[in-house]
């Protein structure tokens, strides 16, 4: 049943994602600066950058095809859809049936395919370099993410994200050891998927070391703004997914408006803590050699499989 409050909640969740995502990136940037003993940039810096980019003219490469121009919209759309079906505030999401957890991985994959193709479209060496590195990371990260989701799906007996979260959030307290493995694996995957240290460095100016940044080097103006926004949405989506799966307390069940309102400050608090932790991990780590990234993601995959085995062998009676 689609309720009014459900619709409202859905609309609000999307709106909140669009607003909070750049803020989260700004917050991570601030925390990084503080941890390095630097004066932090303003919290709203990502908004200023988006505003600046939306007002700039677009410079297109001569060889750019329509794919290059369409990709930012596809990527942005994918990220908005991902944010819509991840229960950040409430599990009553009318859009949730649009895609289950496995399809969610597919949505991220679709965005990846488009951005990689667009990077190769203009034919610069850095675009292809970034595109093929992104595919390397992606094809290692996706199976690990799927394994994490399978573990959770087995607990909830459903692959719908909303159902999984509802099951985890509103059951009597049961400890699932498998979740610990899945949680660590998910954290690893999130770092790789969001181009963070130790896999990629979002702050680098060294074009030869870039992964994500190399792919968007040729973009400018509103296209770049969309891609930057999409990147923060992706970070937001992964953060919310992690919080919803592993720290689901406070997410509103069904159509409880009051709980929905109460969920907002809790989400902000959880994101703030998560962002600070992310900045902390980024600060104490150096970037790994790119050929160590498969080891990093292999570890994530192994942990996810362990989680699945623990679920099958130890928790199947639960």
């Amino acid at each position: 049943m689609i309720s009014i409050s459900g619709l409202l909640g859905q609309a609000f969740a999307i709106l909140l994602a669009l607003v909070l995502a750049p803020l989260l990136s700004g917050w991570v940037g601030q925390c990084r600066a503080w941890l390095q003993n630097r004066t932090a940039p303003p919290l709203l810096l990502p908004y200023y950058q988006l505003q600046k980019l939306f007002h700039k003219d677009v410079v297109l490469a001569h060889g750019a095809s329509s794919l290059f121009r369409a990709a930012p919209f596809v990527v942005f759309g994918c990220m908005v859809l991902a944010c819509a079906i991840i229960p950040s505030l409430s599990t009553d999401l009318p859009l949730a049936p649009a895609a289950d957890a496995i399809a969610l991985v597919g949505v991220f994959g679709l965005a990846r395919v488009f951005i990689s193709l667009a990077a190769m479209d203009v034919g610069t060496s850095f675009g292809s370099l970034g595109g093929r590195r992104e595919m390397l990371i992606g094809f290692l990260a996706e199976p690990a993410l799927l394994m994490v989701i399978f573990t959770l799906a087995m607990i909830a007996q459903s692959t719908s994200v909303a159902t999984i979260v509802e099951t985890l959030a509103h059951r009597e307290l049961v400890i699932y050891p498998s979740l610990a493995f899945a949680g660590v694996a998910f954290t690893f995957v999130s770092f790789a998927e969001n181009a963070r240290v130790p896999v990629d460095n979002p702050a680098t100016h060294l074009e030869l070391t870039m992964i994500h940044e190399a792919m968007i080097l040729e973009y400018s103006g509103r296209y770049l703004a969309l891609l930057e926004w999409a990147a923060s949405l992706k970070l937001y989506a992964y953060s919310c997914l992690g919080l919803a799966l592993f720290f689901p307390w406070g997410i509103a069940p069904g159509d409880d408006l009051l709980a929905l309102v109460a969920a907002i400050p809790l989400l902000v608090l959880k994101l703030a803590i998560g962002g600070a932790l992310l900045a902390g991990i980024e600060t104490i780590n150096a970037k790994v050699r790119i050929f160590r990234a498969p080891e990093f993601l292999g570890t994530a995959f192994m942990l996810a499989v362990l989680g699945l085995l623990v679920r099958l062998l130890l928790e199947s009676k639960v």
Partner: protein
Amino acid sequence: MFLCDDTAIEFTPQPGAGAPVWRGHAPSGDELKDFAAAAHLAGGRLAAIWGSDERQRGSGFRLHCVFGLDRGHAWVSFDLPADEPSYPDLSGIFSAANRMQRATRDMVGIAADGDDQRPWLRHGAWPADWYPLRHDAVHAAGMGAGFDNLPSDYDFVQVGGEGAHEIPVGPIHAGIIEPGHFRFSVIGERVLRLEQRLGYQHKGVEKLFIGADMAHGARLVGRVSGDSTCAYAWAYADAVEAACGVAAPPRALMLRALMLERERVANHLGDLGALGNDAAFAFGLTQFMRLKEDWLRLNHKLFGHRFMMDRITPGGVAADVDAPALAAMVEQCGVIGGEVKKLRTLYDEHAGLQDRFVTTGVIDAALARELSLTGMAARASGLLLDGRTHRQGYTPPPPYATLGVRPVTDERGDVAARVAVRFDEISESLRLLREIAVGMPSGDTRVAVAPVAGASGLGVIEGWRGEVLVGVQFDKDGKLARAHPHDPSWQIWPALEHAVMKDIVPDFPLINKSFNLSYSGADL
């Protein structure tokens, strides 16, 4: 006898207090080539090559080659006829000669008879038959004005085979750094070959020296490569003092050493931070930049300039420090030394950083010798080359003769070795600075220097990057007829092409930064 018994070149020591230099004249091209081969056999290295136009002084052109040998430097000149000047190719003996010879051809129009006749510094901004450093090259308002900017074709060496492709990088980069072009031939991420194309920073410095007076030359030489301004200024001062037969007073020499060591520490601090940052360890960058900033601010307080530009002049120094200033400096050495020690522990024990540093960009000792490497890069490959330290048959010039610099080397030759050498050199320089403060002699800080018409000299200084050479020659009016500033980057840039070959593309920025070479200094 200077080097070997069978050379026909007569060597005479250059007067002056600078690094030991012997001057000789090769009567023929064969003698020059024989001497180069003998120098190579004796474990020597090529330090510099440049040319000068002597046609106004009655002969044709002159080629200058400087070889670094155990006892000091051998400065060999060789006269060439005014028509079709050509000399034997030395790049078969010293591979470092290749770019220097090509640059000499571009600038003066005297060519080695080798196969590689590609231009080096000339990028099409002037025609191939116009040589900027010839006295009859038209010096229109704005150097090279009136020429069309011609397209310049450049034959990069092509690498073929299944899956091999090229990645062109630069000269415009994603960050705000100096321009240089790097052509990678790769298979996937693996680097098969790197070829550099430099010269984008060419700004005609050598031309500006011609006809300049001595003091203007001193200011100009300090701006060839700003990060080594003290080394250049001192090398120039040594060259001028050798040419004019004066010696700077002891206090001036001590102050020069003080500035040179401060320059060394400042650059090593900056580079150590940048090395961390290139491995995405931004924490290191922030900490080291803070230390460097403190260091530069004290420079400004003591010498009135953050980089101590124009403070070393022919005849002495243009700045003096009093006892309280020295005390402040010693105190800062203690503070910075303590912090660097902590950061060194952090770098050494950081598994992620060490994983990036160790075995990355290896240059072994044999290759380093073959490439005529100098300075920090050579020492990190296990070569004990430091113009400031005593070694068999070599006494460093004052004040280093009495300071007793302990040599720093590392056998590994990788990025980790260059990081370690930098750390060790910082501690050694901090120790030296304390010793300098204690042993600072009293007396004058400068003597008057009058240019001697027709005289010439060569100065060699162990800068933070390596050996900086400046050769000067005065004309009959006491103006500069020619000055050649030579940056150690000339010899170390080709080493980068070798260092990256066993590694992958994303490791290049780190390897590059571990050398941190000057574009400006080598592009002139």
